């Protein structure tokens, strides 16, 4: 659980070799990890070096051609495209999510729990339903345009749905809670006296924020950025539904390999490449945060 990293040093003090009972308690998690993380990844790894036959079945015939194809300029462009979208999403989520998380984290306990509940509520409905709801809000004859037209703020319906902007709206909407929650965790732990100390020492709100609050909530920011950026790169449903399927993201391309194109080995190679990319990003940022 990446967001827990901030807690690690505290736990380490009590570290001790788990006994048999400890391992037994641990077993379901290990089993789960093995069945749903390690095994599928291993299968994908093997597939990524295979070929497909006429029907699209995987043929075990070693080849690196899938990987050479990954680095074709078509897919590189899609990779950079996806990274751009994910980066924009992450930045907006951070800008929007930080103040929200901060507000919740500093609110009184009673209000805090209610606000947290509000952040969680969207998870109660299916992701697809929420996406369709956004589509009907943004559509040309939807309530947003209706309201703007009624208020005479615009003369003609805004063209939002099926544009890159709609994709970003959808991505931000979906991933915002994943930014808010870890930052909230950091903010909640933040000692109010430290903020007061900053004010006391002559720091205005801006300086106090940049010199004290941000550095002290960095673990939360870091976790939030990871939790938003990484899944956002691979997202495909939103690009299809809200982007009108025009902007292929790497997630769409991969999905296509397992669907229409029926080229599992190539899809696996794309997936493995992405996995490596994430691992590299993660290692790099971990080293950075260690150094800081």
């Amino acid at each position, binding site marked *: 659980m990446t967001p827990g990293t901030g807690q690690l040093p505290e736990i380490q003090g009590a570290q001790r070799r788990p006994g048999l009972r400890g391992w037994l308690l641990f077993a379901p998690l290990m089993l789960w990890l093995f069945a*749903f993380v390690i095994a599928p990844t291993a299968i994908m790894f093997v597939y990524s070096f295979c070929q497909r036959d006429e*029907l699209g079945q995987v043929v075990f015939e070693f080849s690196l051609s899938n990987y050479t194809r990954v680095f074709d300029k*078509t897919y590189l462009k899609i990779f950079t495209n996806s990274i751009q979208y994910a980066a924009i999403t992450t930045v907006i989520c951070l800008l929007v999510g930080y103040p929200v998380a901060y507000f919740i984290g500093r609110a009184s306990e009673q209000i805090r729990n209610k606000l947290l509940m509000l952040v969680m509520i969207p998870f109660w409905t299916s*992701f697809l339903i929420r996406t369709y709801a956004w589509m009907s809000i943004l*559509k040309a004859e939807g309530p947003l345009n209706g309201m703007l037209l009624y208020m005479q703020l615009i003369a003609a319906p805004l063209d939002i749905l*099926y544009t890159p902007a709609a994709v970003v709206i959808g991505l931000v909407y979906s991933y915002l809670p994943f930014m808010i*929650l870890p930052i909230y*965790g950091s903010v909640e732990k933040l000692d109010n006296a430290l903020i007061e100390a900053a004010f006391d020492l002559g720091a205005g709100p801006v300086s106090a924020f940049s010199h004290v609050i941000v550095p002290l909530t960095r673990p939360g920011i870091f976790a939030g950025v990871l939790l938003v950026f990484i899944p956002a790169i691979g997202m495909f449903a939103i690009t299809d539904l809200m982007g009108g399927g025009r902007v*292929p993201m790497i997630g769409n391309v991969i999905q296509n390999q397992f669907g229409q194109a029926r080229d599992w080995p190539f899809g696996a190679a794309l997936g493995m490449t992405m996995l490596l990319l994430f691992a590299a990003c993660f290692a790099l940022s971990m080293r950075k945060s260690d150094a800081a």
Partner: protein
Amino acid sequence: MKRIGGLIYLLAIAIVAFLVGCKKDEPAAPAPGAGSAKAPAAAAVGKELNLFAWSEYIPEDVITGFTKETGVKVNYETYASNEEMLSKLLAGGTKYDLIQPSEYVIEALVKQNKLEALDHAKLTNLKNIVADLRDMPHDPGLKYSVPWMVGFVGIVVNTDKVKDPVKGFKDVFQDKYKGRIVALNDNREIVAWAMMTHGIDVNQMTPENLEKVKPTVEKWIKLVKVFDSDSPKTAMMNGDVDIGVVWSGEGAILANTDKKYAFVIPEEGARQYIDNLAIPKGAPNAEGAHLFINYILRPEVSKLVSDKFPYTNPNSEARKLLTPEQLKNPASYPEIKSKQTFRDIGKAASDLDKMVTDLKAAAN
């Protein structure tokens, strides 16, 4: 610790969502005792039938009617694309009794010997299938499959917004309609439309032919606002687009809701798709599958399907039971000069996919 609690909560939600997702994908296992293992001989109809079919394609009352009559419980699992169905079927692990592939998939499955031959003696209602669908190239003589519904890819126009006459693909993909077009999100489709426009056989998916149509596809992709195969009518009804190339069933629904929507069969060529029922090799309840096929071939049952999903009904007796309005709907029963059907293109699907992906990526 509160924050850890929150995150665990979140994680728990994610896991639950994941498991629920998994569960949906797991077909109900055939009941023990179903199928051939226990069945001694002739009347070996299993107690359960595992049906793997398109979503929103088989009316509920057809299934309940079948169960009521035969006592066979139907486990209806759905898919959204032929490829999805193929992936799951070929992955093995599940024994389906009845699948519903389109014609080019039937062809591929037959090639790979993945289908059970049908026992025509048990399909007493097979005679109801119209003559011109009995000898299609993908399965001559209906040895392995029985047509379920037939549809076309056609053009739907909002005549309130588009005043110029629209006859074919070339009238749709014009610069003046940029950003007002919906198209099926299917890479083979858009390439096929371009091939028809160029007068090329849609099944000659050679690198040369791909290269030839590439500029056309490139130009068209830039004009399209929405690619959607699941429900292209939505963008149309929402007012986000005014013209599009969609499934005839979708077009028929639009035409039924409002007179302003017109359905046009493209003059360049009508791509006909035939969805069929077929029995995969090794189906545990092939007997029950035959029963089901024969059941839906009854005119009164087939009519129920047409009422709900206004595609072209291949059942000549069922058509006689339809209302004149149903038969007049141009999207359901269009007049077509030359029909084209997709054949299996094997590995070329991969080249085609790459080309369209490339063009889509470049279009932005």
